């Protein structure tokens, strides 16, 4: 297939991601405006990061004027999964793919784009990835700007309701695998319990939200990896 038709195929395949991102990033935009980010700043944040969980957690650090180090470590931990996805994608690219295209595809490695990319037939062509990325990121940035701009004029009731939208998306990502795999279920439960303990206990509750997430993630994932290691063969292309 020629590059232009591959690009168009990417654009069309990405439409469901566009719609999903539009709704979720709208909620993100509202939250960004809530901590006094302008629509431009919120849109720029979305354009440069394209990571729901990371951006959402980043808002907590920005709102509490946390340190750059804390923010960097938090992003590193939360977005570590992209490392795995990128590693998996590198196996699916033709070996002669130029570095410049590898760097271009890297920009758009998200849970959803990765999901479509690894499912695509045959080797991954950069033009197809760019189609997916363009349509998805458009929805992501557009929704963010609209949310940040409209958050102020929306009825408070609606804002309250959209407050759970991002959490709903996280739940939609973790619950189906947790339903099917015992170790994932245990990991999710363990992390929620630890996070709750950190939120209520004296001393521990004084930790910033970002540090709490980092500590809980490393602890829970390490315990799971030690007690319930996965077979090498299984690890290929999960999210």
């Amino acid at each position, binding site marked *: 297939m020629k590059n232009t038709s591959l690009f168009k195929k990417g654009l069309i395949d990405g439409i*469901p991601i566009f*719609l*999903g991102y539009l*709704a*979720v990033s709208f909620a993100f935009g509202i939250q960004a405006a809530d*901590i006094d980010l302008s629509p431009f*700043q919120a849109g*720029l944040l979305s354009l*440069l990061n394209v990571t729901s*969980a990371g951006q959402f957690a980043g808002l907590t650090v*920005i709102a509490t004027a946390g340190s750059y180090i804390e*923010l*960097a470590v938090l*992003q590193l931990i939360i*977005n*570590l*999964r*992209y*490392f*795995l996805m*990128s*590693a998996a994608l*590198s196996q699916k690219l033709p070996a002669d793919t130029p570095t410049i295209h*590898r*760097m271009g595809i*890297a920009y758009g*490695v998200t849970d959803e784009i990765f999901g479509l990319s690894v499912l695509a037939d045959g080797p991954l062509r950069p033009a197809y990835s760019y189609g997916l990325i363009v349509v998805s990121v458009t929805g992501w940035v557009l929704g963010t700007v609209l949310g940040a701009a409209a958050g102020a004029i929306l009825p408070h009731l609606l804002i*309250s*309701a959209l407050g*759970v*939208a*991002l*959490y*709903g*998306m*996280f*739940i*939609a*990502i*973790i*619950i*189906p695998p947790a339903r099917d795999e015992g170790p994932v279920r245990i*990991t*999710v439960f363990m*992390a*929620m319990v630890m*996070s709750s303990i950190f939120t209520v206990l004296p001393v521990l509750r004084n930790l910033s939200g970002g540090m709490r*997430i980092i500590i809980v*993630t490393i602890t*829970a*994932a*390490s315990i*799971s*990896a030690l007690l*319930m*290691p*996965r077979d*090498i063969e299984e*690890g290929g292309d*999960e999210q």
Partner: protein
Amino acid sequence: MTPNVYMYILVMALVTYLIRALPLVLIRKEIKSRFIRSFLYYVPFATLAAMTFPSILTSTDMLLSAVIGFVTALILAFAKKSLIVVAIGASCAVLIVETLAGIL
């Protein structure tokens, strides 16, 4: 807002991009360590779970609507509904509860 908001955005963007780019550009071989592979596999689940709970309970105007929104999301996700259905469904549940609470 602090004047450093653009620095925050740049720090985030840089870290996030490097995580995505390094494996694609550099790593050609499979990661061999069973522990590291397993750890990386569990990371997103632990992170998203820790971010969701208990924070979701204070994400709306009242505890009751948040709890019902949470339960709605769990049920829809358990039924493997798509990302957007779960997100919008939970929001609708909150909207309904809070509207009723306002009337009663």
